C-alpha cells in the first residue's frame, strides 16, 4: 500500500469530505495561503476559495462560536485551534455552548462540529505550547474525543468526525505530522469506539494513544528480549471508549499498563486504570500501573522537557514491574 504523511492523510480526509458535502467548511487561523501551522491544509484555499477555507483573526472564542453557529444552522464546520493550549480561550464556547446545546435543548438543536487541534511536547516550545489537555474534554459530556496515532487512523477517523452529528474534539500530536504510514487509495472510514490492537500480545496489555502508541510499540519490541509478549492497545477514540475490547484484552493478559503523555494527576490514564481495576478486578494479576507525564508545566530545556514525558524505558520498566521482574 502507498505510504503518506499523517498531515497528508488529514488533507485527504478533508478534501474527500468537502467534495462530497458542500456543507463542510474549514475555519481557523493561518489556514489560508499559509496552509495551516502544520501545513495540513496546503493548497485548500486555492481549491475551495475563501468561502470554505476561512482564515480568521486571532479570536479563538469566535472561531468556535463560528463553528457552532454554523453547525446548529445546518453546516458541518471544522474549526481549528492551532494548539490545544489555546482551547483555554474558547472553553466557554466548547464546553458550555457547543457540547451542551443538544442535551440542554432536549435534542432540539444539533451541533455537528469538529474541533481540530494538536497537543503534546517534544519540540522545545515550552509550557504554553506543549500541553496534553484531552482529560478536560474527556470529562465533558457532549464531546467526543478522538486521538489518532497513524496516518491510516487520522484519515478514517477525521472523515467519521466530519459526518458525526455531535461535537468532536479531534486531537492530533505535533510530533507525528511528518510520519508516514500506509493509507489505501480507496475511500474508507473508521467508526468511533473501536479500538485497534496495534500489536498482539499475551502477557501484558499496554493501553496507549496518540504519540504514545509509538513509544509503546518500541517498548513492546524491547520487551521481547525479556521474553515478554506485550499487547499494544490503541483506543483511537477516548470518547466513546472501547471498554469491552480493553477488558477483553486485560482478561487475556491479566496485566495492564496505561500510558499517557499528559500530566499524571487527573489524567485519562487514571480514569482508564480505575475502570479496569474495578471491572477486571478478579482477572488482574497485579495492580494497574500508569506511565504518565510529570505534574509540571513543560520546561523549555530539552533535557528537562524529555524528562517530563514518558519514554520507551519508562514503559519497559512499568511492564517489568507489573510482570514482577
Amino acid at each position, binding site marked *: 500500500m502507498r505510504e503518506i504523511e499523517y498531515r497528508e492523510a488529514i488533507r485527504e480526509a478533508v478534501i474527500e469530505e468537502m467534495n462530497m458535502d458542500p456543507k463542510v467548511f474549514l475555519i481557523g487561523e493561518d489556514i489560508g495561503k499559509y496552509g495551516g501551522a502544520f501545513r495540513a491544509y496546503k493548497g485548500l484555499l486555492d481549491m475551495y476559495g475563501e468561502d470554505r477555507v476561512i482564515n480568521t*483573526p486571532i479570536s479563538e472564542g469566535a472561531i468556535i462560536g463560528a463553528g457552532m*453557529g454554523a453547525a446548529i444552522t445546518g453546516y458541518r464546520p471544522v474549526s481549528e485551534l492551532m494548539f490545544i493550549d489555546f482551547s483555554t480561550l474558547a472553553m466557554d464556547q466548547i464546553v*458550555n455552548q457547543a457540547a451542551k446545546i443538544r442535551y440542554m435543548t432536549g435534542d432540539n*438543536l444539533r451541533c455537528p462540529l469538529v474541533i481540530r487541534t494538536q497537543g503534546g511536547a517534544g519540540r522545545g516550545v515550552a509550557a504554553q505550547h506543549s500541553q496534553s489537555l484531552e482529560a478536560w474534554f474527556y470529562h465533558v459530556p457532549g464531546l467526543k474525543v478522538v486521538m489518532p496515532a497513524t496516518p491510516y487512523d487520522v484519515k478514517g477517523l477525521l472523515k467519521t468526525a466530519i459526518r458525526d452529528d455531535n461535537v468532536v474534539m479531534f486531537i492530533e500530536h505535533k510530533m507525528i505530522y511528518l510520519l508516514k504510514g500506509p493509507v489505501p487509495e480507496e475511500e474508507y472510514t473508521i467508526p468511533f469506539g473501536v479500538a485497534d490492537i496495534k500489536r498482539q500480545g499475551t502477557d501484558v496489555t499496554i493501553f496507549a494513544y496518540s504519540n504514545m502508541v509509538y513509544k509503546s510499540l518500541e517498548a513492546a519490541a524491547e520487551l521481547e528480549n525479556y521474553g515478554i509478549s506485550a499487547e499494544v492497545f490503541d483506543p483511537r477514540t477516548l470518547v466513546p471508549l472501547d471498554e469491552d475490547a480493553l477488558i477483553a484484552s486485560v482478561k487475556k493478559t491479566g496485566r495492564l499498563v496505561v500510558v499517557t503523555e499528559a500530566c499524571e494527576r487527573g489524567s485519562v490514564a487514571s480514569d482508564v486504570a480505575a475502570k479496569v481495576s474495578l471491572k477486571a478486578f478478579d482477572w488482574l494479576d497485579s495492580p494497574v500501573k500508569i506511565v504518565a507525564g510529570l505534574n509540571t508545566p513543560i520546561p523549555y530545556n530539552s533535557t528537562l522537557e524529555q524528562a517530563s514525558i514518558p519514554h520507551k524505558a519508562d514503559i519497559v520498566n512499568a511492564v517489568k514491574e507489573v510482570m514482577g521482574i
Partner: protein
Amino acid sequence: MAELTREQKVEFLKTIITIRRFEEKTIQLYQVAKIWGYLHPYVGEEAIAAGTCAAIKKSDYIISTHRGHGHSIAKGADLNRMMAELLGKSTGYCKGRGGSMHIADTELGMLGANGIVGGGIPISVGAGFSCKMEAQGRVTVCFFSDGAANNGVFHEALNMASVFTLPVIYVCENNMYAISMSACESISCKDIANRASSYDMPGVIVDGSDPEAVYGVVSSAVARARSGKGPSLIEAKTYRFGGHHPNDPAEYRDKKEVEYYKSEKDPVINYKKKLIDEKILNEEEIKMMEEKIKKAVEDSVRFAEESPEPQLERFLEEVKSI
C-alpha cells in the same frame, strides 16, 4: 421606510402585552416554586423584542440571552411549550432539560437563550456565516445587554462579523444594569453604540421603550445586512423594571430612577396610549386584547401543569449515549 400599517401597530401592542403578562405569570409561578432555578424577567424591555422581531422574517435567526422569554415570544414561540419548559415538563421546548435560560427551537429560528452572559455573541458569527454562505438573504439578530458588552467575546465576534461582512444585527438592550453593576460604572464609553466604530459598522441608539422606533432602526440594519453590506450595532436604551431576578430587591438602584422609568418609559402604558391617541384601537378593543392574552397565558399554565414530567428511565437511557 414605508409607513407602519394598522395591523403592524396592533401586533406590536399584542406582543408587548403578551410578553408582559407572560412574565408576570412566571414571576407568580416562581414565587410559589412551580418555576425554579433562575428566572430573569423581561418586564420593561418588551418593546425591543417586539420591534426587532417584527422587522425580521420567520426564517431569520435570533440569538437570545438569560433574559430571553420576550425574544422567543416575539419570534413567535408557542406559549404553551414555553411555559411547559419553565415548569420542566416533557412538552417544553427542551423537554424540561433547559428551563428558562436555555429555551431554543430549530423551527422557530431561535438559536438559544443562554446562561452565559455574552455566550451567544460568538454563535452569531457562525449563524452569520451560515446566512452568508447559503445566500438566501437570511439574517441573524443577536440580542445581549450592557453587561455582555464587556465580555471579550463581544469584541471577537463583532470584529469577525465586520471583517467577513456577515448579515448580523447586534441588538444591545442597555437596561443600565448587570445585576448590581451599573452600566455607567462598568463601560468605558458613554454609549455602547460608540463601540461600533471599532468594528467599522453603523452604531445606532434607539429608545427601547418605543417599538416603532426599534422597528425602524432594526429594519434599516436588516436591509443593510440583506443587501450584503454587513453587520450593525443597535443600542436600545431600556430599563429592567424589577430586580435582576424575582428575589432581588435591587437595593443598589435609586428609587427615583426606578420610578422615572416605570412612569415614563413603560412600553405597555405608553404604547396603549399611543394607539388610543392615534385611534387605532379603543379602550374596549384593548380590553379584549388583554383578555385574549390573559387567557392564552392561563392556558399555557394549564397546558404546562397538565403536561407529563419527563420520563426518568428515558433520560437515563439517553445519557448512556452521551
